[in-house]
C-alpha cells in the first residue's frame, strides 16, 4: 500500500474516532484464554420496496430486525436517503413497532419517534459514488455515447453526494478522485481514452478498496461492456470484499445479457450479493433509465449499522434483515447477504486494513 493512502486512512480513523468515540469490547472473564479478534462495524445499505416496487420511506430503526448468523444485532446508526446518519440511542430489536404511515408514490411510514440520536455530521451525509467506466477495446464502438451517458449521470447527481470517476482497460485510471465538484468529475469523464484489454475485476477490486477507505455510505457504479480478458482476480473475490466493506455494486452492461452469458451472470450475482442492481442497457434510453434507477436508489436507501455481537465464526457470516410488523409484511428488502470478517490487523503494509469502520476488540475462546 502506498504511504499516501495509509496516511489518509489514519486521518479517516481519527475523524471516525471523534464522531463515534472508541468502544472497545472488554475481554471476557479474566483467566480465560482469550483470542483477540478485531471486528468492524457492519454497515448495511437497505432498499425497501412495497409490493408495487415503490420505495418505502420513513421507516425507523425499530422497524428493522437484523441478525447475523441468526444472532440478533443492535442497530447502532441509522439514516435514510441523503440525510445524515444518526446514532441510535435505543435498542432497535424488540422496540416499539412503527406506526402506519401514508403510502404514496413512494410509501411513507414516518413517525416522530425519538430513537435517533445526534447527527454524525456532514462527513457521513450523502453517498460517496465511485463510477468505474470501461474504456477497453470492448467499449470501442459505443465509447462516445457511453461517455455522454456518464456525463449526463454525473450532471444529474444532486444532493450532497461526492463522486469519484475511474476508468479501466488493462490498468485502472483514477481520473477524478472523490470530490463534490461535478465539473471536475466531468473533466475526468471527458478525458478518458479508449483502448487496450479489459481487466474489469482487477479495476473493480481497486475501486472497492478505494471506496472502502471512506466514511459513510459508498456505492460503486460500473458502466461496462461486460467482458473481461485480463483480470488476475476472479469476481468472487471482488464480491466478497464489497460485501465485507458494505459497498453495493451497481452494474450497467452496454451489451445484451444473452450475448455475453459469463459477464451477465457475474453482473447479476455480484450486484445481488452486494445489495446493488444489474442493468442490461444497450441503448441510450436504457442507459439513461438505468442511471435514473440508480439515482433513485441512492436517494431512498436506508443506512444501518451495527457492531456484531460476539460470534466465534471467523468465516462467512450470513446477514438477514427483516421488517417488523404486519404493515410491512409485503415489503421487499434488498441488501447484502453476508460478509467475511477482515483479517486481523497485526500485519504490515500489504494488508487491506482500511475498511473505514471502527476497529474494536471482541473476545472469544
Amino acid at each position: 500500500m502506498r504511504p499516501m493512502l495509509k496516511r489518509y486512512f489514519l486521518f479517516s480513523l481519527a475523524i471516525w474516532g471523534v464522531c463515534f468515540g472508541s468502544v472497545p469490547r472488554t475481554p471476557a472473564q479474566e483467566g480465560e484464554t482469550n483470542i483477540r479478534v478485531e471486528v468492524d462495524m457492519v454497515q448495511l445499505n437497505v432498499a425497501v420496496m412495497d409490493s408495487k416496487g415503490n420505495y418505502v420511506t420513513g421507516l425507523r430503526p425499530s422497524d428493522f430486525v437484523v441478525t447475523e448468523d441468526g444472532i440478533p444485532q443492535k442497530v447502532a446508526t441509522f439514516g435514510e436517503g441523503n440525510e445524515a446518519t444518526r446514532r441510535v440511542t435505543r435498542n432497535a430489536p424488540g422496540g416499539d413497532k412503527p406506526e402506519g404511515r401514508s403510502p404514496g408514490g413512494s410509501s411513507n411510514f414516518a413517525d416522530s419517534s425519538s430513537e435517533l440520536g445526534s447527527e454524525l455530521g456532514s462527513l457521513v451525509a450523502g453517498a460517496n459514488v465511485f463510477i468505474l467506466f470501461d474504456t477497453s477495446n470492448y467499449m470501442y464502438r459505443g465509447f462516445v455515447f457511453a461517455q455522454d451517458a456518464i456525463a449526463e449521470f454525473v450532471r444529474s447527481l444532486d444532493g450532497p453526494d461526492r463522486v469519484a470517476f475511474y476508468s479501466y482497460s488493462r490498468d485502472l485510471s483514477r481520473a477524478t478522485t472523490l470530490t463534490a465538484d461535478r465539473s471536475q468529475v466531468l473533466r475526468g469523464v471527458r478525458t478518458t481514452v479508449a483502448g487496450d484489454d479489459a481487466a474489469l475485476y482487477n479495476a473493480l477490486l481497486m475501486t472497492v478498496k478505494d471506496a472502502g477507505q471512506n466514511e459513510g455510505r459508498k456505492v460503486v457504479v460500473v458502466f461496462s461492456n461486460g467482458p473481461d480478458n485480463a483480470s488476475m482476480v476472479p469476481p468472487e473475490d471482488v464480491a466478497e470484499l464489497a460485501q465485507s466493506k458494505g459497498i453495493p455494486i451497481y452494474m450497467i452492461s452496454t451489451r445484451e445479457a444473452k450475448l455475453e452469458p459469463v459477464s451477465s451472470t457475474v453482473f447479476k450475482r455480484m450486484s445481488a450479493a452486494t445489495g446493488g442492481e444489474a442493468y442490461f442497457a444497450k441503448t441510450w434510453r436504457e442507459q439513461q433509465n438505468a442511471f435514473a434507477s440508480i439515482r433513485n436508489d441512492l436517494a431512498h436507501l436506508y443506512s444501518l449499522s451495527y457492531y456484531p455481537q460476539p460470534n466465534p465464526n471467523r468465516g462467512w457470516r450470513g446477514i438477514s434483515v427483516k421488517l417488523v410488523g404486519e404493515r410491512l409484511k409485503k415489503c421487499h428488502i434488498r441488501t447484502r447477504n453476508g460478509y467475511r470478517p477482515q483479517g486481523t490487523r497485526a500485519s504490515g503494509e500489504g494488508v487491506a486494513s482500511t475498511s473505514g469502520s471502527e476497529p474494536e476488540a471482541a473476545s472469544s475462546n
Partner: protein
Amino acid sequence: MKPPCLSALTLRVSLCFLLGVSAYCPASGPLPDSSTAPQSAAVAKPAASVAVPGPLRSFLRMAGISQKISPEEVLPLLARNVAVEGYQGRKDRIGRPTEFLILLKRYVDQADELVRLAGPEGVIRVPDCEHAGPLLAILGYQLQGTCGKQVALETADPERAFLTIDSGFPLAELEETLRGTKPFVCPFASSPVPVLFSPVDWVGAARTEGGSSTNDVVRLLLEDPVLARLYWALARMDSETAAAMKQFAGVASLRPFAPVLDFYGSHISIRNGRVLVPGGASAESAWKSLAGASPDSPKEFVARLLVKDDGWFAAYFDTLSRLTPARQVYFADSHRLQHFYEALLGRDSSPGPARPVFRPDPDLLLLVTRLQFDSSGQPTVPGDLQAWQQILRQKSDSRVVRDWARRASHWKSSEELVEAMFAFSRIGSDEGPLRIYLMLNAIDNVRPVDRRLSPQTVRLLAEKFSRYGQQYLIFSEFEGLNDASIARFLEVVDRLDRISNLTLRANALGIFQSDVGLWQILARQRQISPENLNDSWQRMISPFAAGTNSAPLLFDAGRASLQELSRAVSGKTNLSQDELIKLLAGPNQPHPEGQQVRQEMANRIQSVMESQRLVSLDTLLALGQGLNEMAQGKAAANDLLPLAGQLREFEMPRPMFTSSERSEWAAGFYNSRHTSLQTRTDLAKLIKSSDAGKQLADARGLIVPFLRDTLVGLNYAYYEPPGAQVLHNNPLFVRSHDFSGEMAVGGGQSWHVPHVFGTGLPAGGGAHLAGSLADLPFVLAEAEQDFIVPENVQALIWHELVPGLVSSSTLPRWWGVSRNELHAVTLYQRTGEELLAASAQDPTLRRTLLDILSGRMVPQRLEQINKCLQAGAVDDVLSRVMPGETFFLAAEFRRRFPGQTDSWGKAGAELEHLASLHPAEVSWKRLSDDFGVPHPALAQSYSRELLNLKPFPAFMGYSSRLLAESWDSNNLYWARLADEMGYAPVMLNRLVPELTYRMVEKIFATDFEDWPAILRAMRETGEEFRQGKIASLPKIDGKYER
C-alpha cells in the same frame, strides 16, 4: 494534466539535447516553442522544421507518444510508431493500415479543420452558445437542449466525436463555457517540430507508387511505413554519420535498407572519413577483410555492411559494437572475427535478422557479453572439451548441432567451442547447447579455480538441462555448492520426478521446491554460513531421497527437511513459524532501526500468510506429531482436536458460478481439486474415532497438502511485490499453484519457470501460477503488475520491463551494507558528475571521459554529451546521464588514473579519503555485490552484480526483459538518495521497493526500448522523495530514522 486550452504546452525541453538527432549542440536552433526554452549562447542556427497540425499534446496522444518528450523527438517517434504499429502484414511491404493509423490520419484531418477555424491568430473563439455551431460540427457534437444553463453536449457524429475525445480536446471546458456567459477561447495552432535533414529530402525519398503527391512530411510518414522506418533508423544515428549516409547516395537510396538500419544501424559511426569499427583502429584490417571494403572508405564499407548476407553482417557488427572496448578487442582479432562470423552465418543466411518484428538473435549478444575468460585470456570451458564433445553428440535434434558434433572430435582449443556457440546462437532454443553453455559457464565461473565443476558434473547437468535447467540458477548463486551437492540435487529431483501418483508428485514437488526456496533465501541473507552451505544443503534435500512414495512419508520428509533447515540457520530443529518468518525477514539486527525494519518485513510476510488463510506450520507439525503418537498407542493430546479444527477453518470464496457453468466457461482452467481435498479433510473425526487404527498411522499424510501450501506461501510472501493485490485478495492464489506439470507433455513444466495461468477468465477462479518456483520474484511481479496505476494517461508500462524492475527491488536485501558503503555509492556518483562538469572546460579530460563512457553509450549519445559539454551545458548533461554511468565513470577513472586527482572536486576528494580508510567497503566488488541487480535472464544468476552494459534492445523471446536487467541505475540512485537524506542502510529494505513502485507508476514511455522514460520516472520519483511526498519513514525521538 491540464488541457491545451488552459495552459501553454510545456513539453520538456533540453537546450543541449535539442536537435540532437540532427544538429550539433552549438548549432541548436531556437525551439519551436521558444517561450519554454532557456536562452544560451549554444543556440545559434535554426533547424529545419515541419508543422504538426494542432497542439502537440493532442497529436502525441493520438500518435501514442509520451507527453514527456522533447520536440525534436516527435517525428522520430511518430515514424517509429507508424513503422511498428501502423500497418498489418509484413514490414517490408505496405500492408493494411491499422486502426491506430486510421484514427491518427483522421485526427490530422480534423486538426487541419480546427487550425483553419482558429485562423491566422491560431485561436478558436466561440463568443457564446449560439455561435458554437461550426466548432461543434468539426468536433462531432451537438447541443442537447437549448442554450442556457442546462445545455450539454452530446454526440452527433461518432467518428468525429471519438477523435475529439481521444485527442483530449477540452470538451468539458467547452460545455462549461457554453452554459455561462464566458466565451470559449482555445489556442489551436500548428506546432513546428524539427525535421531530420530537410523536408525536401523526405519528399524526394517517399514512395512514388500509390499516387501520394503531398509535400507534407508528417503525412508522408503516415502513408509510407518504409520511409517511416528509415526516418526512425537515421534519427538514432549520430548526426555526422547520418549526414554522411545521406551524402553517399541520398535518402531515397537507403530505403531498401531501412529494416537493417533500424535494428543494426545505431552503432555505425563515421568520424573524419572513416567508419569506427569494433576493436578500434587495430581491427580495421580484419573488418576490411571480412567486409570486402575498407573502413577508410565509409561509402563502400557501409554499403557492404548493409547488403552482406541479408543483414547478418550488420547484426554481427552491431552486436560486437555493444561490447566493452576490452571485449571488442578479443572478438575483433582477425582470425576470430572471420571464424566466428562464418560460424554464425552457417550455410544459409536466410532468414535475415532484420525481417522479424523483433531482433531475432538474443543469444548472440548474450554469448559475446557473458563469455568468460581464464587467466590466459582464453574462453573458459566448464568441464573440459571432451565433455562438450559428448554433450553435442547427445543433442542431436538439430542439423546444425549434428554438424558441429562431428567437427568437435577434432577440437583442440576452447575457441573452437566458442565458434560452435556462434553457430548455435541462431537455433533459438531454450534448451540448446548455447543455453547450456551459458548456464554452466555462469555456474562454473563463480567458483574458485580449484573447485571448478568436474567434467562429470558438467555432463550430468547438461544431460538433465532440458528438464531441470531452470532450477540451476541456485548453483550459479552459491559458489560453495560443490559437485557432490549438485549431484545429490539431481538425484533427488529425479526421484521426485518419477513419483507416479500425480497428486503426491505435485505435493512432493511443491514441498521440495519450497524448502529449497527457503534455503536459498536464508543462504542469500548469509544466515547460513558459507562453510555450512554444502552440509546444510545436503541435509535439507536428503530427506526427500529417503522415500516419498506415500503421503505420510512425504510429510516426514518435509518435516525432516524443515528441521535441517532450522538447524542450519538457528542451531535448533523446532523453530516456530513466527521464528522462521523472523529469520526470513532478515538476520538479527543490533540497532533499533534495523530491528524495526526487520519486524516490518516479518509483518509483511505474516500479512500474506494471513491473507492467503494458510494454516500455521506450528499447527501442521504439532498435528503430525500428535497423530504419530496416537498411532503408537498414546492418548490424543488435549490440543489435538482444536488443532485439527484449524484445518477446517479455511472456506472457499462464496461461489459465483455453478459447477456446470465453470465447466462450460472455464474448461481446463478451473481446477479446485487440491483445495477441495483440503476442505474435505476432517482429522477431528479421525482423532475421535475409537477404531482408527491404521488410518491414524497414515493420517499425517492428510496434512501434506496443507504443508505444501504453507511452505509455498512463505516463498510467495517473501517475494511479495510492492502494491500486491492478488496476494492479499485472492485466498486461492497460493493454493492454486499448479505443480502438476500437466500443462505440458511429459510433466516437465513442473520444473520450469511458472506461467501465469487463467488470466481474464471470470469463471476460472482467478489466475494462478503453473510450473515450478523458479524465477518466482519475476513471475509474482508479472502477476501483480497490472495493479500498478499509471500516473499518466496512455502511459506504456510494458510487460517484461516492469517485473524486471520490480523483482530487482524485491529480491535484494540490504542487511549487510555499511554506512561507508552507502556513502561511497553517493560519492562515486557525485565524483562522476564532478568529472563531467570539469571536462566542460578541459578538452583532454573530456576525451578521456568519453572514451570511458563509450562502453556504455551509443555513438549518438556520446556525440550529444560531447557537444553539450563543449557548450558548457553541464546541467543538461547531468540530468540525462544515468546514475549507473556516473558511478562507472568515477570508478573506471580511478582505476585507470589512480593518482590523477586534479580534476576532482569535493566528492572526489572525499571518496579518495574514504577509500584510503575503508578500501574494502569502497571497492567495486563490494559495491557491485551489494548494489547491483540480479540477472537471471541476462547472466543466469540471481547474484547481484553491476555489469556495466549499454541498455539492451528488445529481443524476440525477451521483449524488454533484458533491458530491465541491463538497467542498473535504480538501486544506486535510491541508495544515494537514502544516504543524502540521512537514512540508515537497513532502511533500503523498505525504501527500494516503495520507490521502485512509485517509479513504475511514473513511467511514461513510447516504445519497448524507451529507457529515457525510465530515467525520467526515476528522477521524478527521487524528487518527490526529497520533498518528502513519498516513502517517508517513521520518526523515532522526533527524528527520522538514521
